[in-house]
């Protein structure tokens, strides 16, 4: 079984993205992925007031396959919190997605930390883009975690090209921190994460449809981790984090 902890579903012509749920599920089927966490490319609330509905409807079309996360823009202050409340209470979203490079705010500022705390209140994980760009650095995210230690945070992309060591040290210090394996093209870094943290906090991710999920799957296998670790990474860790009975 494979649960993809990091995927996308959205139609955003201005950015050149056309990834409706049908396309996402087709790609999942081709790659052998059973379930995927999906968030939009666009933040909410922003210009389009119906992003939540779009993601919710898309996930509802494929019950048991798509797990919706609410991608938010903390710049909207109370509006962002209200959007998260709607997402969880009205539409059943299972987590939060943040991409600080898209809205240009430090993750440890009050606006974002309020979202971290609300996620903790709901008991839902927060997936955050965490690579080499300013506003997205692992140590910056850790500063947010310091201010909201109850939040379960998935630091995406294993710290990017140059910040893997940072993200692993953050995880060593923060028992509520996880990493996902999406996009970074190094099997060795996946192996390093498992050797450093154990396999229990490493989540398989693809960032599909942008990235080739077959390559992402191959990367885990090429890391040579053994069957038990692969099962944790490919589905058990995500199922536990999301409270899913994957069977």
């Amino acid at each position, binding site marked *: 079984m494979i649960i993809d902890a990091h995927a996308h579903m959205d139609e955003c012509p201005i950015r050149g993205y056309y990834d409706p749920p049908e396309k996402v599920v087709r790609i999942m089927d081709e790659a052998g992925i059973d379930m995927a966490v999906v968030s939009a490319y666009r933040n909410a609330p922003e210009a389009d007031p119906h992003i939540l509905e779009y993601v919710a409807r898309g996930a509802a079309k494929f019950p048991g396959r798509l797990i919706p996360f609410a991608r938010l823009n903390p710049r909207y202050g109370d509006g962002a919190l209200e959007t998260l409340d709607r997402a969880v209470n009205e539409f059943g979203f299972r987590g939060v997605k943040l*991409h600080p490079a898209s809205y240009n705010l430090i993750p440890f500022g009050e606006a974002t930390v309020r979202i971290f705390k609300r996620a903790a209140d709901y008991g839902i994980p927060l997936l955050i883009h965490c690579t080499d760009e300013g506003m997205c650095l692992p140590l910056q995210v850790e500063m947010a975690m310091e201010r909201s230690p109850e939040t379960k945070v998935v630091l995406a992309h294993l710290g990017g090209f140059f910040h893997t060591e940072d993200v692993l040290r953050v995880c060593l210090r923060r028992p509520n921190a996880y990493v996902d394996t999406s996009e970074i*093209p190094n099997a060795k870094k996946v192996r390093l994460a498992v050797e450093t943290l154990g396999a229990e906090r490493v989540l398989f991710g693809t960032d599909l449809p*942008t990235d080739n999920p077959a390559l992402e799957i191959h990367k885990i296998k*090429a890391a040579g981790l053994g069957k038990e670790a692969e099962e944790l990474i490919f589905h058990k860790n995500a199922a536990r984090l999301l409270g899913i009975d994957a069977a």
Partner: protein
Amino acid sequence: MRLHGIARALICPRKGLSYSAREANAAAARMCGREPNAFMRAFRVDPWQGEGALPGEARGGENGVAAAYMNPWEDNFRCNDSRVFFAYEFLESHGFPLVMETGYPWVSHVSQLWEVAGMFPSLRILASNAGQLDLSGLSFGSVSAVLAESPNLYLGTAAAVAADWLKEAAENWAKGRVVFTTSYPMFEPEMERFRIDNGCMSDAAKREIYYDNPLRFLGLS
């Protein structure tokens, strides 16, 4: 290389402990001498060495230099700093293609390469790392625009994480200029082979990436 079906590789010298490009180039020459059928070499140009930075030997020849290599990040220069233009003038006039370590902030953003490519239109420049080291996805638009406008810019495939984008590069806006690279040891030959072998571009495009385009970039076709 043999494990992953790579027949030949262009060796771009790494920065050694001595920080001497001369020593790095000498090490690469020795390596190529040991495996002449597997390796070609690029001459590492550290522009802060002035005229002494430039390759003194002609292109080609036995164990000769196939290209030049510049690393603005390690050698601490902006690739579009006018003080390094003397290197581009030499390389352009002597027919050396140039591998440029690309995607590093402040020193080798693809927009800086765009400027250099425009100033030296006969200089073939390969932008490594798919023109960007940016997992936010926000740089792909810049790379595609620059490559589309600059016929002397080539695109290395290592770390080109966006599958459809790479297909479009190979089949449309950079057709004939997408070159298989691994950027080993920063990235992994197994993964970079997988990226192309299992990519969504046509078989013809894959052949171009693996064979025709590298030869074109190196001036060997």
